[in-house]
């Protein structure tokens, strides 16, 4: 292949990606979606204000179900974030080039999901204005966090994860910001991209440093996925509560996290692809690979379900009570709902035709997002509402404000993602070009 067509292809790719912010391809659709999202952001603000004014009593939480939606949703959000890291960092380290079309927005998804997830435990506190007491700072009173608590480590884990994800995403986007800067025609876009491109000139030394930084950050990020979600699982597994105290929880949670994350990446890929008309960059191959990832992690999660039930049956007594109660108790809908939405449509992904078809892929992804939410609800509520003593059994019912906060965070996530799509290069153009280059030189 000659130099010329390649260069022009590079230019086309660059143009396609960086021209999106100044010359957005679907302004009407974007505005409609953004408007709806902002309505939910308004709901989020009202919901948080209500909690801060009146207290967490506006939710359905009670004793025994002291944790309700906030903690279940916290796990759900953080879990979604993990797929972004896995796609970007893990596949980078493994030299899987197909990631290059997906990694940028998958990383953005991670950032926004982790933000939503990270805010939840703070909003959920009885006295949120003291959340910084979980930080190990040398206070004048000489009081430190309690280092045996899974929550302390959760706090560290999520904070670390957020910072590392942010670094990774930002390092990755710098060359593209520079490209966007160079091509921007309007002054305000030049200034905007110019500031955030950090003076990137594309020199060889820049690329060398960049590559070191990027790979090192990736190498830090990948184990974080495992440690963060293992740590989150300790929130449950460390408590002596039947249905929680199980050694299967860390891997089970990590797999579930990757599963739900890949499902949401699939949804976003379909959305980005059609909204921004990037069908030749996010190709069928990408959908196919995502489908395989979803299928693989889904089957591993299913194995987690089986193990959990088996552990309960083996342990007997209270553990078995909990398992049976999940099958047929008042929250059976959440168990069977999780089983259905997570694993039944999943089986369609064995077929390539379904994997590469955007609409079924999107719907299956949506189903898994719902199913995994039900799983978190089931793990939390059906365990707590009936733990040891029959006398402390009490049902949990979510209130309007539980739902409004959840929908509000979804609105926040979508609004942030739409802003990202609107103003930043959604696809890592230089990495795609690199991949094409490598492929071309390999062929040559």
């Amino acid at each position, binding site marked *: 292949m000659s130099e010329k067509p390649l260069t022009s292809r590079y230019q086309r790719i660059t143009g396609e990606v960086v021209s999106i912010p100044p010359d957005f391809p679907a302004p009407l659709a974007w505005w409609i979606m953004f408007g709806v999202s902002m309505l939910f952001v308004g709901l989020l603000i009202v919901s948080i204000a209500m909690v801060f004014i009146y207290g*967490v009593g506006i939710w359905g939480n009670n*004793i*025994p179900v002291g944790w309700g939606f906030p903690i279940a949703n916290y796990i759900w959000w953080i879990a979604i974030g993990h797929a972004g890291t896995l796609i970007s960092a893990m596949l980078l380290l493994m030299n899987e080039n197909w990631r290059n079309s997906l990694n940028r927005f998958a990383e953005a998804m991670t950032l926004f999901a982790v933000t939503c997830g990270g805010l939840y435990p703070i909003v959920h506190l009885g*006295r949120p204005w003291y959340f910084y007491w979980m930080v190990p700072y040398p206070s004048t009173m000489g009081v430190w966090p309690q280092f045996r608590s899974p929550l302390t480590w959760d706090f560290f884990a999520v904070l670390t994860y957020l910072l590392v994800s942010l670094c990774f995403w930002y390092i990755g986007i710098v060359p593209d910001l520079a490209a966007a800067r160079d091509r921007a025609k309007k002054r305000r876009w030049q200034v905007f991209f110019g500031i955030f491109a950090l003076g990137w000139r594309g020199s060889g030394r820049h690329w060398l440093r960049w590559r070191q930084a990027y790979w090192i950050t990736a190498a830090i990020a990948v184990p974080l996925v495992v440690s963060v979600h293992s740590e989150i699982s300790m929130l449950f597994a460390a*408590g002596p509560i039947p249905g929680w105290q199980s050694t299967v929880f860390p891997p089970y949670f990590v797999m579930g996290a990757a599963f739900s994350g890949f499902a949401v990446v699939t949804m976003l890929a379909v959305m980005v692809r059609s909204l921004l008309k990037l069908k030749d960059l996010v190709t069928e191959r990408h959908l196919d690979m995502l489908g395989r990832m979803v299928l693989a992690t889904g089957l591993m999660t299913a194995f987690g379900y089986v193990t959990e039930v088996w552990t309960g049956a083996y342990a007997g*007594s209270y553990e078995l009570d909990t398992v049976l109660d999940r099958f047929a108790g008042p929250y059976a809908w959440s168990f069977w709902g999780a089983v259905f939405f997570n694993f039944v449509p999943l089986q369609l992904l064995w077929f390539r035709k379904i994997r590469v078809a955007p609409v079924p892929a999107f719907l299956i992804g949506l189903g898994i997002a719902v199913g995994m939410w039900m799983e978190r609800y089931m793990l939390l509520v059906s365990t707590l509402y009936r733990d*040891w*003593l*029959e006398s402390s059994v009490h049902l949990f019912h979510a209130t309007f404000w539980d739902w409004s906060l959840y929908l509000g965070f979804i609105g926040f996530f979508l609004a942030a993602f739409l802003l990202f799509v609107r103003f930043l290069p959604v696809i890592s153009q230089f990495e795609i070009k690199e991949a094409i280059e490598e492929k071309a030189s390999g062929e040559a």
Partner: protein
Amino acid sequence: MSSADPLELAQQRFPALDLRRRDVLKTLGATLALAGLDGCAREADETAMPFVNDPDGGPSAEKHYATAVELDGIGQPVIGICRDGRPVKLEGNPNHPASQGATDAFTQAALLGLYDPARSQTPARQGAPSTWGEAEAALFDLANQLDASHGGGFHLLTGPVGSPTLLRQIAALRTRWPGMRWHVHAPLAGEVPPILMPLDKVEVLVALDADPLGPGPLQTPHGRGWSARRRAYQKGQGSALVFVAEPAPTLTGAVASERLPARFGRIPALLAALEQRLSGSGDGGQFDAREQAWLNATATGLVRHKGAALVMLGPHHPAALHARVAALNATLDAPAPIFQTPRNVDAGDAPSLVAAMRAGEARSVLVLDSNPAYSTPPELGFAQAFAKVPLRVHAGLHPDETAELAHWHLPLAHLLESWSDARTADGSTSVVQPLVRPFFDVRSRHEMLALLAGDRTSGRRLVQPTWNANDADQRWQNALLSGVIEPSPLAGGGGAPSRAEGAGPATPAVAGGATPSPNPLPQGERANVGLDLVILPDPTIHDGQFAHNPWLQELPKPLTKLTWDNSIQLGPQLAARLGLENEQLAELSLGGSKVVGPVWIVPGIAAETVLVHLGYGRRAGGEVGKGAGFDAYPLRSLAAPWQRTGARLTRHDGSRTLATTQPHTTMAGHDFVRLVDRAGEGLPKEPPKPSMYPPQKKTDGLAWAMAIDLDVCIGCNACVTACDAENNIPMVGRDQVHKGRAMHWLRVDHYADGPQDDPQLTFQPVPCMHCENAPCEMGCPVNATVHSPDGLNLQVYNRCIGTRTCSAFCPYKVRHFNWYDYTREAPPVVRAARNPEVTVRDRGVMEKCTYCIQRIEREKIDADAEERPMGEVKTACQQVCPTSAIVFGNIADAESEVSQRKADPRDYNLLEDANTRPRTTYSARIKGGSA
């Protein structure tokens, strides 16, 4: 006299009074008066005598006064504890035989009644605020008229009267006005008056539809007596058997060795069978297998323990049956009663008053501390008849249903702010001294009657003549210190009844004019005529007088754990037949009256029996009780106020959510309450399991722990209410309880296991376990719950950020969270009732039982100051418990009572599987043993 200037009157009555200050208070009204409670100006009456000498007399000094409160006219001796001049806690009087340091839940909650913001504060004339000047003028007018007519046409209606001074005053009034008539309205009175039995001497107690351990004025002394016997049995002395036959489960039924759910119509037959078996004249009629078994066991027990066997029959059964029971007890050589509370035999009843009012004979009526407009059945027509009376005066604590119908409503003082006296269940008498000066411009009941007689003498001077005493009198001072007053040998003319009077008749007196219940049905016959209806006073709000007391409204009913509501209760089989389920509305009709209420299924109610509780559906008197429950008084008839046949129960559209603190009452195959078969038997001890929790630092020689004996717990809830009072537990209301947010630090779990028509009923008080390996401490990210070296699991409120991890990890779910700001919105007067030694918790903070750490710390400080080793510390729940089921102390001291309890082979850990090594442990219940 009638046009006396109120200020002048006040000046006469209170010479030391600064009238200008009083005017200011009057102008600014009650808010300021209440705000003033926070200060330390409101000391008790200067002549009241602190039980314990006040060591330093500083502003925060704690003073203890021996006094009493009343329930159904029967005194409950207490020590009132005042801090900063405010009464903050009532404890049982340890030196009084009717208390021995314990109280029931009603007595604990009487404190909150004192601070009730709904209490009447000024006289009201036809609903409009008035002054005492005008009220006194009206009363003096009345007195003048009555002097002229020798009392003709005047009727006085009171509740049951036990106070010697009140009796003396009424007697004096009747002497002065021979034409006046006195009526007693006692909605809860049975056919025989309450009798205190020496249950500590009873090896075999047969309770035929009787509930000596149930809520009521005799619960404390009966609980004391029964538990003393039971404890001896645990050590292998005697039997302490209880046989109960009853239509609806009671607290006595719950502790029974053999409980027989029996329709109330079967009670006479069962009694007859016992009579015949004891006299050897046959086995007395047709009985099914279960009844046979019960009769065999009961009769065997009675025979074997002749001399220490006792049959008790519910007081609502007809006098004829009571006579037979008395005869049976005589043949059994049963222990003699300690005291039978005498009836006010010289008083008429409410129906005779209604007849007089209807006939137009009643020209003026004074209702003193009674609420007949609410607590009489509508068929009596009290309200309509009352409306015909030309002068209607009501004196009471609340603007209640009767007050609304009266021309005058005069605010009465609470007993805790009055001088008075009371007769206790054992027949001894107590002086009631005020713990605090009245919060409002109110009169005590004695001042009220004195005013009626045109006499403005104040409280103490009205009580002293009864006892032939004065302030300087050593006997009087001793009575104030000890809480017991002996009638003076000189007091014959004073009118104080002697103790011997009315003591212990073997055959109880029968009230004149009372119609016996209709003869109950034999089994099987007329089964199709309808259901049996059993009417009982509510276990927590009694006859309705406590409907506005949040501590009692939110106190879970012992056998249903419902709060804030009554319900139509029936057994599971009947409910299934009628297609009814919990919370479904149903219509209960009988004769011409019907009520609609929510259904609650209670295992252990006899077949074809429906149970309702009185006291709910209040229409006036305060906001707290409004809208709670339904009024069951319409279901009563004059002839059969307690048990009726022929009731119909049908499904009604709709449902009402009921707030229960314990939706599940079975143990689901687990053994939270463990049982052993007989005394001396133990539970297998499990060796401690390995744990990954690090060892805790320990103080030498100090390790706090608690032991709770499930064998003597009667589920009376006194501990829960005492904990509410001691630890400033917020009441959260019906909706919050329904959501699962009740705040009681100590709860009493109730289980009804086994066959649902004849379950094993058990109770289990559950405070914080103070686990040595506490999961909550491991879970908290900010060190807000930590372990103290002396073994307490501490909760540091101001470090808590409210993650609720501790509660999620707590296997016992004894932690409670301030979901909202439950404390700040309390009215100032309720804040004044709080214990100043216990922090009030803010929104967003977790709280739980502390083992009354404030009491531990106080003992620690006192011991330090006096340079002595620490002595005994009693938690509030332990102190109040009438059966001494709860013991707290130091397990590092092998001699302590708690160590001895834990050494008992019945001792076990709740949820051994959770491996938390709890410091609170339980002694297994002993199933029954054999006769």
